[in-house]
C-alpha cells in the first residue's frame, strides 16, 4: 500500500495553506536570523577564529538535524506511520531553516571580521552549505505539495553527501570567510550563483526520483508484492512525472543562471562566452537536459530510460559543480581547492 493522502496526481488546489505555511517559514527564518545577528552585534572583532563564529556553530547543529532527518526518512521507508514521517519532516525543516539562518548570520559576520563583507555564497564551502539548504528546501516544498515522504529517503542522502563534503572542506581549513578577489564583487555573480544552485538542487531531486523509479520498476517486474519498494514508493508513473517536473524547474533556472553568468563575464572579462571549462561544462549540462526534454516530449520516451538520463544528468551536473574546480583549470577561482 503506497502512501496516498492526496489524489495521485499532485497538488489538488492552488493551496493557499501551503503558500501561507512557506511564507510563515520565511518569516521565521528572517526573524531567527535577525535574533542571531542581534546576539552577535558587539561580539565580533576582526580575525575572530572560525570556531567562535555563531554561524559555524549553527551550521554544525543544523547538519546534525539533517543527518538525523535523513535517518528518519530512511526509517520511514519501513515504519510508514504518519508520526515517523512528521518527525522526519520536522527535523529536515528545522535543519534547513538552521542552515539558512547560519548563512544569513555569516553574511553579517563577514562584515564584522573581514575588511569587506560579502554575500556568503562566494567560496566552495559556502556554496556547499547553500546547496544542501536549497536541495532540502526544494524537496520539502515538493513534499508539502505532493505529500510523498518516501522521496525524502532518496533526496536526503544527496544532502548527506553534501554535508560530508562540507565537513571535509572544513577539515582542510577551507571553511573560514575569505576576502573576495575583485572580480567576484558583482551583483550578477550573486544572482548567477543563486539561480545555479536552485538548478542544481532541482537536478538533485530529479536524480533521486530516477533512483526511486528504477527501484520501483524492478520491484514491479519481480512482482514481489510484499517488497518494500512496492509498499512505500509512489506509483511509477507518478515518480516519472516528478522527474520531469524537477528537471523542468531545473532547466529553466539553469538557463537563467547560465545567462546571468554570461552577463557577469561580459562585465568582468569583456566577453559573454570564453569557452572557459566552467562555462563549457554548464553548456554540457544544459544540452544534456535539453536532450532529456526532447526525448521525453518529442520522442515520447518515459520510464527507465528517462530515469537513467536524470541520474546520469546529475552526474554531469556534479562534475560541473565540483569536478571542474577539482580537475580542470579556469577562471572560476571562487571554487578552487587549494
Amino acid at each position, binding site marked *: 500500500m503506497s502512501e496516498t493522502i492526496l*489524489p495521485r*496526481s*499532485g*497538488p*489538488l*488546489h492552488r493551496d493557499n495553506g501551503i503558500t501561507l505555511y512557506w511564507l510563515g517559514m520565511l518569516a521565521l527564518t528572517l526573524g531567527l536570523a535577525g535574533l542571531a545577528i542581534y546576539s552577535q552585534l558587539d561580539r565580533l572583532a576582526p*580575525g575572530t*577564529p*572560525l*570556531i567562535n563564529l555563531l554561524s559555524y556553530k549553527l551550521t554544525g547543529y543544523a547538519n546534525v538535524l539533517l543527518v538525523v532527518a535523513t535517518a528518519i526518512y530512511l526509517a520511514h521507508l519501513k515504519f510508514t506511520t504518519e508520526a515517523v514521517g512528521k518527525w522526519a519532516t520536522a527535523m529536515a525543516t528545522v535543519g534547513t531553516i538552521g542552515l539558512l539562518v547560519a548563512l544569513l548570520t555569516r553574511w553579517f559576520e563577514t562584515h564584522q571580521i*573581514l*575588511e*569587506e563583507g560579502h554575500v556568503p555564497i562566494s567560496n566552495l564551502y559556502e556554496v556547499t552549505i547553500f546547496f544542501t539548504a536549497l536541495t532540502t528546501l526544494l524537496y520539502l516544498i515538493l513534499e508539502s505539495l505532493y505529500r510523498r515522504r518516501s522521496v525524502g529517503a532518496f533526496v536526503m542522502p544527496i544532502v548527506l553527501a553534501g554535508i560530508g563534503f562540507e565537513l571535509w572542506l572544513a577539515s582542510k581549513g577551507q571553511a573560514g570567510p575569505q*576576502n573576495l*578577489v*575583485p*572580480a567576484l*564583487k*558583482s551583483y*550578477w555573480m550573486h544572482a548567477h550563483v543563486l539561480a545555479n544552485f536552485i538548478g542544481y538542487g532541482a537536478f538533485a531531486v530529479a536524480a533521486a526520483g530516477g533512483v526511486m523509479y528504477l527501484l520501483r520498476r524492478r520491484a514491479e517486474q519481480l512482482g514481489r508484492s510484499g517488497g518494500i519498494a512496492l509498499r512505500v514508493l509512489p506509483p511509477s508513473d507518478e515518480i516519472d*512525472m516528478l522527474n*520531469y*517536473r524537477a528537471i*523542468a524547474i531545473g*532547466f*529553466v533556472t539553469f*538557463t*537563467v543562471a547560465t*545567462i546571468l553568468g*554570461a*552577463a*557577469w563575464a*561580459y*562585465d*568582468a*572579462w*569583456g*566577453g*559573454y*562566452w570564453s*569557452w572557459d*571549462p566552467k562555462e*563549457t*561544462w554548464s*553548456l*554540457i549540462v544544459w*544540452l*544534456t537536459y*535539453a*536532450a532529456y526534454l*526532447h*526525448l*521525453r*516530449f*518529442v*520522442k*515520447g520516451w518515459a520510464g527507465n530510460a528517462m530515469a537513467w538520463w536524470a541520474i546520469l544528468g546529475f552526474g554531469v551536473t556534479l562534475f560541473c559543480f565540483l569536478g*571542474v574546480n577539482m580537475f*580542470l*583549470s579556469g577562471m572560476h577561482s571562487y571554487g578552487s581547492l587549494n
Partner: protein
Amino acid sequence: MNPDTLNSEQKPTLPASSPGVRLLRFLSSMPVAIALLSLVALVSMIGTVLVQNRDQDFYLSRLGPFWYRVFDALDFFDMYSAWWFITIMGLLVLSVTAALVRHGPRFWKLSRPLRTMRPWPVKADGEFELELEGQVAPQQLEQLLRRHGFREFRQQPEGKGILLLARKGRLGRLGFFLVHGAVVLICIGGLITSQLGFRGVMNLAEGESDNIVYVQNGSEYRRLQLPFHVRNDNFTINYYNTGMPREYSSQLTLLEDGEAVAQKRITVNDPLRYLDMTFYQASFGDAGSETRITLRDLTRKGFPAQQVESAVGRTLEEGSGMKLELKELRQHNIINTAQEEDRQQRQDAGPSLDILYQSPASGNITYRVYLAYPHMLAFVPMGAETLTYANLGFSPADGRMMGLLAAYLEAVNDIAGEVGPEQRRGAFASALRRMEIPLEHAAELGSRIIHAEQLLRRHKLPMLFTLDDFVPKMYTGLQVARDPGAPLVWSACLLLVIGLYMMIYMHEKRVWLRLGDNGHRLQIRAILSHRDKHPLRNYLQRLQTELAELGQKARS
C-alpha cells in the same frame, strides 16, 4: 509529431518526393536533433580537458612529438574555432532552423484565435460527466470559465442542448518559436562576434597613451590599431590586510585627435563603453618602478659599496659576467605572526624587491630585500625553491660594521699558521684599530661580528643588498573588446527564457462542455497541449467541484 493538433488535416503534410523536403525532414528529425545535441556536448568536453591556446612548447613537453602532431592536425589546441567544431555548431543551427520551418506553420496556426467551433473530440486527455442539481444556463458556464482565465468561447446548439468550447493559453504555443528561434539567434550573435568583433589586451603605464591592441590569435598575437588613443591617467590599487588586491581601478581618457571624447574611472566589473567598444579593467603590473639599491660586493677587498638607481624589469651587467635582474617589487608582504596555529595575526613587513643574482662563479641566487628590515637576509640559495631567512644583525648599508667585518676577515686571513681564539682576538683588535673604533665597544661588537661572519661563511653569499628607496610605477592591464553580436545575444537570451517558461508552464487548454437535458446534464472533455497531462487532471477535479456547486446554487 504532436498528437493534439486541432484537426487531423493540419498535420504537416509535405510532399515526400522533393529532395529539399527530404533534407528538411532529415535535419529536423528528432534522432538528428538528439545526435547533434549530444555531439556538441561530447566534443565540447575535449577543450575543457586540454588547456587551449598555449604555445607550442607547452604542448610538446606534455604530449610528446607524436601526439602533438596528431592533436595539432585536428586543431585541438584551438578547437572552439576549428572548422569541424564550427561545422557541428552550424549543423545544430540548421537542424533547429529546419524544425522551425517544418513545425512553425502548425504552431503558428495553433496560436491563432479560435475562429470556428471545433467538433466534440473523439479522444480527450480528460473527461467527466455531471448531473446538475439545478438548471444551468450556458452563460453561467461561460462566466465560471472566465473566472478561470478562459477568454475564447464558441457555442452551437446540438440537438436539444448546447455545445460550448472554451480555450485559454493559446499564446503558449508561441514558446516553440521563441525558444528555438532564440537558439538560432544566439548562435548567429556568437558568429557575428567572432567574425566582426575582437578581444585584445593593452597595457598602459600611468600617464601613457596608446592605440595598439594585441589580439590573441591561437597562440600568437596580432596588433590592431584603434581609431583613437587610450590614456591611463592614473592607476590605483588597494589591498586587503592579507596582502591580496582588494580593488584596482584606472582613470581612462579616450583621445581622438588629441581631444578627450570619453572619460571614466574603470574598475573590475565596471568597464568603460565607447561607441561599439568596451574597455575592461583586467589586470595590472609593474611598469618599471624606480628603485635605489645599495650593493655590497663580498668578493672584493673591503666589501665596497655601490649605490645604483635603476628600475624594475631592468638588468645590470658587469664585465666579470655578473648579472643582476630587478625582478619584482612587492608593496606588501603579509606574514602571520600568531603563535597558535588557528589564530591569524597579520603583520605587514612592507615593501620588498626581488633581485636575481647570476654569476659564473656563484650561480643563481634570488634575494628578497626588505625596505624596512635591511638587516634581514632573505634569499633562495642555488638549487632551492623557498626563501631562507637570516638575521645579519646590521644593515649591509652600515659602512662602519661592514668595514669592521671586512677588516676583521682580512686580519684573520693574514694570520700565518694556526688560528685559535687568541689569534682571532688579536685580529679583531687590529680591525678595530684600523677602523678607529674605541676599544670600549669591543665586547658587544665582537659578538655581532662573529655572528655575521659565521652566517656569511655558512651561506656563501657573494653579495648583499639593501633597498633604499623606490617610486612605484604601475601599468594597467586593459581588456579591449568589440562585440557587435552582443545586443542580439542578449535579446535572444530574454526570448529564450520567456519562451521556455511559455513552453513548459503555459499550456493551452481546450474544454468542451456539452450541456444537455435542459441544462441538467453536463459532459466535459478537455485537451491539454502539453504531454504532462497531470495538471489537467487536477484542474478538471477542481472544475467538477465548482460546476457541481453551480448546479446546487441554481436549484436553491
